[in-house]
């Protein structure tokens, strides 16, 4: 490690909270012990860090903010949490009914009845969309991704919405829901945006050609759903419905 290379980890090392034995920092810290120039640079760097930390700490919230946060919660709280015990099952039943309505909304334009795989997948979409840990294969090129997906039992002949066809970073995996394979593609659209495309085989479905995508929100996740060539697609993103619409 050269003098200059050592500056990168040293610049990021926070003496009061990072572990000096962490391999990320240990070599550079050891080098610093025998290099006076590096030690002087480090001292200046940490001095700036300390000043910056103080400067950030001085960004104080208005004195009224705490009370305002607590007061607003008291207004919200009675309607959500402070109900008598019998309300808990009632709320659970209401939640189940809402979920059923959502599932029906997703399925109704495409096929009669509720496919249990689709129903289960619908429930899982918020958690799957938040997870971001499904990068079993990653590529900006769809051909190797399709091959990888085919090898792992996923769909390989799926359609990708036009706006996502030239996205540089795509991660994917194949998961199983109620015994059926579900292909998941996670697109790295821009900082902080990761729309997910879920593809599941639904061979018996007979979509109405005139029906467009169905839009719904599930636990804060905007979802567009449609069927095409024996497959059901869900495009989901935590955020506004408009963002999802714009991706189609």
């Amino acid at each position: 490690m050269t003098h200059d290379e050592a500056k990168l980890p040293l610049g990021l090392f926070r003496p009061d909270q990072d572990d000096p034995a962490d391999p990320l920092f240990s070599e550079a810290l050891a080098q610093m012990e025998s290099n006076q120039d590096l030690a002087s640079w480090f001292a200046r760097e940490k001095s700036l860090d300390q000043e910056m930390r103080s400067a950030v700490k001085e960004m104080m919230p208005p004195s009224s903010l705490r009370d305002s946060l607590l007061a607003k919660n008291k207004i919200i709280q009675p309607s959500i949490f402070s109900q008598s015990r019998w309300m808990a099952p009632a709320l659970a039943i209401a939640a189940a009914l809402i979920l059923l309505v959502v599932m029906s909304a997703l399925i109704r334009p495409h096929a009669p009845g509720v496919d249990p795989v689709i129903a289960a997948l619908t429930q899982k979409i918020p958690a799957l969309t938040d997870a971001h840990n499904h990068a079993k294969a990653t590529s900006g090129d769809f051909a190797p991704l399709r091959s990888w997906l085919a090898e792992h039992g996923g769909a390989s002949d799926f359609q990708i919405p036009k706006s996502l066809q030239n996205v540089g970073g795509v991660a994917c995996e194949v998961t199983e829901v109620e015994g059926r394979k579900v292909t998941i593609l996670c697109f790295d659209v821009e900082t902080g945006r990761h729309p997910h495309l879920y593809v599941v085989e639904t061979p018996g479905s007979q979509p109405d050609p005139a029906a467009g995508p169905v839009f719904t929100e599930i636990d804060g996740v905007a979802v567009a759903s449609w069927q095409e060539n024996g497959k059901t697609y869900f495009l989901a993103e935590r955020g506004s419905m408009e963002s999802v619409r714009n991706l189609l």
Partner: protein
Amino acid sequence: MDDVFQELVDGFYADVYRFALSLARNPDDACDLTQQVYANTAGRIHQLRDRTKAKSWLFTALYREFLKSKAREKRQPLAEEEEIAKLEAPADGGEQMVSHAELRDALLRLEEPHRVILTLFYMDQISYKEIAAILDIPIGTVMSRLARAKDALRALINPGNINRSGGSDRKNQR
């Protein structure tokens, strides 16, 4: 549940506000963001299984809320421009110490990815792993982005003062 909510407020609201200010760059929007995050949180406290992760849980919620509001306001010029204009008078400190106000101004003048990651870096007790989770980026990206953000910060601080805090080394490297 009431007690838990109050703990979340008392323990973290100041840091949540600081992070919100670094995102929104003006105090009113920072208050709004903080309010929104706590309002959303009130209904989801049961999802917080590990109290030790409360801070990064709130920060993650805040960052997502910010991205959502940014997407909503995409077509409108940001209300922050006026505030930013106030920050643009460069500090003419000569050999003087850089004041904390000037350092904050420099931080808030950075581009969003840089100021966001630096704010998290300079807050107490947020690990690199947590920063990666909050911003939803790999840890390697956290490190490289932080290094670039610190370079950008130094470049914004008056050169006379940079010599005091490490900028001269950048010159020597060239």
